[in-house]
């Protein structure tokens, strides 16, 4: 799952709205990138102060234009991509790699504002229903074939017509893709578009993908990806080995400095931190909260705490399929609310994040300050075990024989399975605390830990999900509320929807906000959606964690410290703008 990103949506939303209303041109030219880098320091300065006093360092990236070098960039990660298929990729790791292999029409820059990518210019009609992109000339796929508007049309139609993957949620109103010539694409929608899908949809080559059936595409592992991006995967990657991508010398943009980018798998974030200290790695996307403060003074290492567009949550299996093997008691909203009430989110932040985060409530991270809805304390399901017990008693879930576990009237125990990723220490920590909290209200949770891909396969088993509860997290894949709000859609069952929640009214509101361009009116709808999903309690949002990252100061310089993280963010521009430290 693409999981974690904070939002700054007022800015981004405003930019998008401006673009859509005024049919203004997207900021052109690659030179805009340098100025974007320069402004990013102010972005950081104005970012909400993070807990722990680790103020974002002020080392602002200078406006240095990178030039290709032989130096490699080495990054640590704790879990691996599930696929190299950019359209069906679910894990953050897969998105991180494929976004450097595949280009999009537009992308987020270091200032987290839209910038052109494969499109050299972008206009939106006055009614907001039509978007026209002028494509770059002379762009070639990695296999040498020319890139044309036919590839763009193929990709958008493939996603929209087949409801394929997580990006389908942004193309719900797409009515047609026109290609007047080889370098022009027009997307037509049935309603005005508040969010520009060009910012997230990777473009795949028609000449390779059109040879496959839909079923083949859904299962396509894409071991030899062919994109238009700045890096290529030249050797087949096998799970368990480091993944290396190589600079594409024929890329259309300003060639980035790292000759190769290698991600090395670590089983443990503490060991990964040691790898950074000893110089085996150049940057790590995740420092364990317990060692973050201690690492701050280490030689040659710079630690950075950034607000994130992410949250960690506990999902409840609410699948209504007859074939679901989840415990049917969890379809009862009272039980879900009671479990939520039992958990003290502040305790989770204090103990599992060592204070480096904010207690969670709705599915839009607090970092997206302009879209996040704060649920008032007296309306929250949080840290109130007494209320939880009352709710369960009133609903007839009692423990007459004092076994410590409540049962329903027909004798079914309130005992559920809870799964967590064994390498995500903060999740295991939270799971243990939640088990304790649930036991205190007479709900028994049985904890098992798995590796991430096993958990992914277990949870996303749409037809026969054999699980009750899981601990996981989300990164918002876009700087817009539509990404996170799109997860619980009925249509995302089989896509991002990890708890199989389905609520027609919620879906209608989603469709409505997507075509509401006025930010105030749109926020009224998104607030309602957040509250509704919060009250339905299919997600227990535990926290919005700070992004704790660290890099070596003696290998690469010019890291832009932006909300959401230097790497593992939805902008890939840090990879393209760093320069050697010496």
């Amino acid at each position, binding site marked *: 799952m693409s999981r974690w990103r904070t939002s700054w949506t007022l800015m981004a939303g405003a930019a998008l709205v401006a673009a859509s209303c005024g049919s203004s041109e997207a900021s052109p030219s690659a030179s805009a990138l340098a100025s974007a880098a320069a402004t990013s320091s102010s972005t950081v300065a104005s970012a909400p102060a993070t807990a722990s006093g680790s103020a974002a360092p002020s080392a602002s990236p200078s406006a240095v234009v990178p030039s290709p070098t032989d130096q490699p960039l080495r990054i640590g990660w704790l879990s691996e991509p599930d696929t190299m298929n950019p359209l069906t990729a679910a894990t953050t790791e897969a998105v991180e790699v494929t976004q450097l292999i595949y280009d999009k029409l537009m992308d987020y820059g270091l200032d987290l504002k839209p910038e052109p990518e494969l499109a050299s210019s972008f206009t939106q009609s006055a009614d907001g229903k039509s978007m026209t992109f002028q494509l770059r000339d002379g762009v070639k796929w990695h296999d040498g074939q020319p890139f044309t508007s036919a590839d763009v049309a193929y990709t958008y139609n493939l996603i929209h017509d087949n409801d394929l993957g997580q990006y389908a949620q942004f193309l719900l109103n797409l009515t047609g893709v026109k290609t007047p010539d080889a370098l022009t694409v027009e997307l037509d929608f049935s309603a005005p578009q508040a969010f520009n899908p060009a910012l997230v949809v990777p473009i795949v080559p028609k000449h390779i993908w059109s040879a496959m059936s839909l079923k083949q595409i859904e299962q396509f592992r894409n071991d030899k990806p062919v994109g238009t991006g700045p890096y290529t995967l030249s050797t087949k990657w096998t799970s368990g080995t480091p993944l290396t991508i190589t600079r594409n010398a024929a890329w259309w943009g300003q060639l980035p400095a790292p000759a190769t980018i290698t991600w090395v798998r670590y089983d*443990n*974030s*503490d060991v990964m*931190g*040691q790898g950074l200290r000893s110089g085996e790695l150049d940057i790590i996307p995740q420092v*364990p909260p*317990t*060692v973050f403060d*201690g*690492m701050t003074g280490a030689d040659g290492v710079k630690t950075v705490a950034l607000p994130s567009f992410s949250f960690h949550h506990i999902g409840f299996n609410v699948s209504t399929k007859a074939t679901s093997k989840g415990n049917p008691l969890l379809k009862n909203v009272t039980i879900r609310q009671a479990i939520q009430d039992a958990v003290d989110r502040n*305790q989770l932040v*204090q*103990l599992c*994040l*060592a*204070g480096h985060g904010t207690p969670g409530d709705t599915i839009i991270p607090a970092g997206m300050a302009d879209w996040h809805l704060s649920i008032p304390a007296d309306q929250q399901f949080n840290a109130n075990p007494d209320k939880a017990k009352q709710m369960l008693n009133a609903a007839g879930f009692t423990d007459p024989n004092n076994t410590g576990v409540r049962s329903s009237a027909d004798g079914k125990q309130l005992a559920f399975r809870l799964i967590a990723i*064994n*390498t995500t*220490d903060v999740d*295991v*920590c939270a*799971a*243990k*605390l939640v*088990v*304790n909290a649930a*036991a*205190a209200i007479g709900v028994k949770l*049985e*904890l*098992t*830990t798995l590796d991430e891909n096993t958990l992914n396969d277990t949870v996303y088993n749409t037809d026969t999900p054999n699980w009750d509860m899981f601990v996981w997290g989300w990164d918002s894949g876009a700087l817009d509320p539509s990404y996170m709000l799109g997860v619980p859609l009925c249509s995302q069952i089989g896509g991002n929807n990890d708890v199989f929640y389905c609520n027609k009214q919620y879906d209608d509101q989603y469709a409505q906000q997507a075509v509401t361009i006025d930010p105030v009116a749109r926020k009224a709808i998104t607030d309602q959606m957040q509250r509704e999903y919060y009250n339905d309690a299919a997600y227990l949002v535990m926290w919005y964690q700070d992004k704790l990252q660290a890099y070596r100061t003696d290998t690469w310089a010019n890291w832009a410290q932006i909300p959401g993280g230097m790497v593992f963010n939805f902008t890939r521009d840090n990879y393209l703008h760093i320069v050697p430290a010496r």
Partner: protein
Amino acid sequence: MSALAAAAPEQDRGRVAAARAAMGLAWSDPIGRVGFLLLALSVALAVVGPVVFPFDPTAVGKTAADILRGPTAAHWLGTDELGRDVFRETLAGAQVSLLVGLLATAISMVAGTAVGLSAGYSRGWLGGLMMRVTDFFLVIPTLPLIIVLAAVVGQSLGVIILVIGLTSWASTARIVRSQVLTLRERVFVERIRALGATDWRIATVHILPNVLPLIFANTVLVIAGSILAEATLAFLGLGDPTHTSWGTMLHSAFTNGASSRGAWWYLVPPGIGIVIVVLAFTLIGYTLDRILNPRLRNR
């Protein structure tokens, strides 16, 4: 038959005396005595400790300042990643570690003895087949097998006990078989067979008691191995996350950055616990082996 029945208690009495004598010899051996003392100490801590200092896994800290905190008057050995008392946790972990070690060894001994006895005693294809199975388990790299089994079957304490037990019986079976091979050719076995005793009776009543001392010495050594295996599994994250053992403590300490943070109080107590218990069983095991194994006996 009546003569045989009368002889059995006589034999038993002799064996009890022999066992007592072996224990006495082990106690008089300085190495054996150290082992017994260490074992007594750890069993006492495991049994009495949690009664006097009960560990409450739900007694977690309140703020970030409470986690991985150094020793204080309230927490003699500091706190763990959830702010719980490491001293009490170590005592609770002793119980789980010993329990897993003993139960896994029991499984291993029963399986190993049964296979070794039948393989050694039966002359036909059964013995050959049993031995091939044993060889198969002997050459399998045990740790990877345990890891795979634990990952596939699950993480409950019972499964871990079963998995360790079923992967550690092969060497016992070999030892038992070799002893049975020599015993079955002895004259007394010929004599009993001539009197009309069945194979089952010969194997269980006459041969088994004679290999018991060897099995016993071996058992003590297997306990040490089982405790280590449990600690290894738990350290690798394959332990039962709902029970506190020394292995799971080391796992949590490691994954939560205790080493980077210099939180020695979380790493050292379970580490020392494992060393003491494994050392105790190893010392006793070797001493008994030296006394009971005829080939090693140097008296």
